[in-house]
């Protein structure tokens, strides 16, 4: 049997890897977005705002407040990372990373809201978002292991006056 060129085998394997990453990665992402949209719908009743305070409706008063936070570490798949590296040759928008940040932020805010709901808060004020890159231990910390998005705010509980 004719021996195959090792370079060709490597190229083939890299191609298979990209295809696999594309397929499974896209599936995981679309499943994640589906879950995000569903939970956002469920938590519509609990507003989270960047304002310092919310006007209290007539006949209601502040009862209790406390810190709430939520965070997530997400990463893009191998295929998107490859596409992004190609994009960097020409510049411009990298949609692959835009959707990653969107996904991370919405997930972090959702987790914050879920915690707020669990503790019985009616709204979250002074919402702040922070994100940072997690460097991977390989390749001398040049690679990115993922991005962390952290959301925090103050949960407030209202009480009906005279109740």
């Amino acid at each position, binding site marked *: 049997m004719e021996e195959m060129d090792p370079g060709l085998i490597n190229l083939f394997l890299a191609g298979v*890897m990209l295809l*696999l*990453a594309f397929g*499974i*990665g896209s599936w*995981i*992402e679309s499943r*994640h977005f589906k879950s995000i949209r569903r939970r956002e719908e469920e938590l519509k009743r609990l507003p989270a705002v960047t304002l*310092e*305070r919310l006007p209290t409706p007539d006949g209601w*008063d*502040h*009862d209790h*407040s*406390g*810190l709430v*936070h939520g*965070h*997530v*570490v*997400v*990463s*893009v*798949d*191998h295929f*998107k990372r490859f596409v992004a590296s190609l994009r960097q040759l020409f510049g411009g928008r990298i949609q692959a990373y835009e959707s*990653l940040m969107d996904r991370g932020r919405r*997930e972090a805010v959702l987790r914050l809201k879920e915690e707020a709901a669990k503790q019985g808060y009616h709204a979250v*004020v*002074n919402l*702040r978002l*922070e994100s*940072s890159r*997690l*460097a*991977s*231990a*390989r390749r*001398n*910390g040049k690679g990115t*292991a*993922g991005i*962390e998005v*952290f959301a*925090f*705010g*103050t949960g*407030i509980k209202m009480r009906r006056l005279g109740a």
Partner: protein
Amino acid sequence: MILSNTEEVPGQSISAFYGVVSGSTVRTKHVGRDLMASLKNIFGGELKGYTELLHEAREEAISRMVQQAESLGANAVVNIRFSTSSVAQGAAELFAYGTAVKVGA
């Protein structure tokens, strides 16, 4: 202990200030988690190992800040801020700080 990232505790007035309190922790991940995360990195999505790690670390930073506030006799910490910085390769510092106050009567 009331914690808040607003300038005052909603619905309550501040009666005394105790100054800045802070808590921090420096953490690194272990090799096993790193390996799992680099596998997960092929397909993307949430890296649960890191999420948990950072969650624990942040809780610890907050609880150290609360301890400090308690030792000063405060009953609330307002205007809480967080910051993250990488100290060395593979290690991160999570830092929480705020103003210790007394609210209510």
